[in-house]
């Protein structure tokens, strides 16, 4: 059970689908042209891709650029709101972690490792 894209064949808006390929933490993920990175990640079955300060998992909350819960890094640019950025072919998306660097016991995310 997960979020998913309405299948184009049965979609009453009658839309066209062209594939878009991105990587997420190095893993190849395919979506369709026009999707936001958040839409693409959700439609690929991902529900969470960021952690809060405690390390708790976070995903999309507001979907319109207000809550900043869906932040990712795109092609090395940090703190991009995934719900506001359209996915472009070849985008390298990496997930972010808000845990402070001095925290012990949890693997550091790219934010701190860089």
């Amino acid at each position, binding site marked *: 059970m997960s979020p998913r894209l309405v299948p184009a064949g049965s979609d009453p*808006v*009658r839309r066209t689908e062209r594939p878009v390929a991105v990587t997420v933490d190095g893993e190849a993920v395919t979506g369709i042209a026009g999707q936001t990175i958040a839409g693409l990640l959700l439609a690929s079955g991902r529900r969470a891709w960021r952690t809060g300060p405690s390390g708790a998992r976070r995903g999309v909350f507001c979907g319109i650029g207000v809550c900043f819960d869906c932040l990712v890094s795109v092609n090395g640019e940090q703190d991009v709101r995934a719900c506001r950025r359209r996915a472009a072919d070849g985008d390298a998306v990496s997930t972010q972690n808000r845990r402070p660097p001095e925290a012990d016991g949890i693997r550091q995310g790219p934010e701190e490792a860089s």
Partner: protein
Amino acid sequence: MSRRHVVVVGAGPAGLAAADAALAAGARVTLVDSAERPGGQYHRMLPDAYEAANPEVLHHGWAAFDRRVRRVLAHDRCTWLAGTSVWALEREDPARAPLVHVLGEGSPGRRGVLTPDALVLAPGAHDRVLPFPGWELPGVFTAGAAQALAKGERVAVGERVAVAGTGPFLLPVAVSLLEAGSQVAEVLEAAGGARVTRGWLRRPWELAAQAGKTGELVSYTAALARARVPYLLGRAVVEARGDGRVEEIVSARVRADWSVVPGSERVTAVDAVCVGHGFTPRLELLVAAGCAVRGGTPDAVFVQVDDDQLTSSPGVYAAGEVTGIAGAPASRAEGAVAGWHAAGGAPSARPLTALRRGRDQGRAFAGRLAAAHPIGREWPGWLRDDTVVCRCEESDYASVRAAAGDPATTEARVAKLGTRAGLGPCQGRMCAVTVAELRARLGAPDADAAAPHRRPLAEPVRLGELAAPAREYDG
């Protein structure tokens, strides 16, 4: 002769109407919106790349909207700045409209400055969501997020979804989910049946004046009935639970004041829950422009406008949800009045009378809906000590309560630094109104009603973007 330059911020129903009216009055218009396509959250548009042949199936009033979009964007006096955010307003001359600092999408974003003769601010609103244990779990969405993803991207947020909170907006959200193929397990409206019935059925002539809106609501109710979706009144989601994502919700019967009826708790298995407790107007630009606000409690602050939609700030007009949550028809009427006056249109123009009447009827309708769906006073009863209040910083209820009761942190700014609530990436957009309300209830003296909306930088801007020279859009 030099034409007046009107900058309109926001291309939802209010902003589009403002641009249309300002063009009709002869002004040069720059329409700015952070989205790629106009329509705002109400007419949330599919991406161009989808090449949708039948986008209208997802929208009410598509034909009129489509005509207006074409008329405005094709107009030779209109500049359409898509994918562009306003990150600051700066007043150089106290008697004139402020400079508008914009940032185009992209990496790096392109910075620019607009110098309007008059400004129409129509930034809209976003969902208000009251905190409850587990609301930070992945799979908890705002009602607006579910709607935006279904209408704007064709993504269904879950297979089996609950919709909960208060207000008529829950209905179109549930219908959007059904239309996108989700199973809607239940719609939970916290307001009680007696209050909703009383609110909706008194003064029926107001309903008649809002036939479009009423018809829309009736069609949603019918769609839910056809799909046999339970619509339960007087019941609220009080907890979301799951291991790393939502797996179930706990709902409970609530009294008129939203206190939980003991023993009424019930568990429902879902993979997503969409929650909305009304809307928060996006006031940061209005507060930054120095516009006076009205409203006594932190959760009901709106910008003050006169009969022409002029704010207390010279050259700054406001329209739409920032003046009061009243829906699309009122927003369109307010936008038209604002745009016409901002452009210097004749105050005696005949259509103004009808527009003002439409606006006032829309506001009256909104007033009755608000009366039917107030936030109950006892909602903090859902909170536990460790319930996250500020999502960004994970500040919990215990720390907010402790700060409100501590003489050393009675001042809101000090409490903010102590609890970190509101200091994270969203800068209090999700929690500031809630924290202000909790603090007021706990007896902390927070005098400034606009404080939760004070964000001089309305959008994040990178240092590299600031350092790059700004482009003069209108020299």
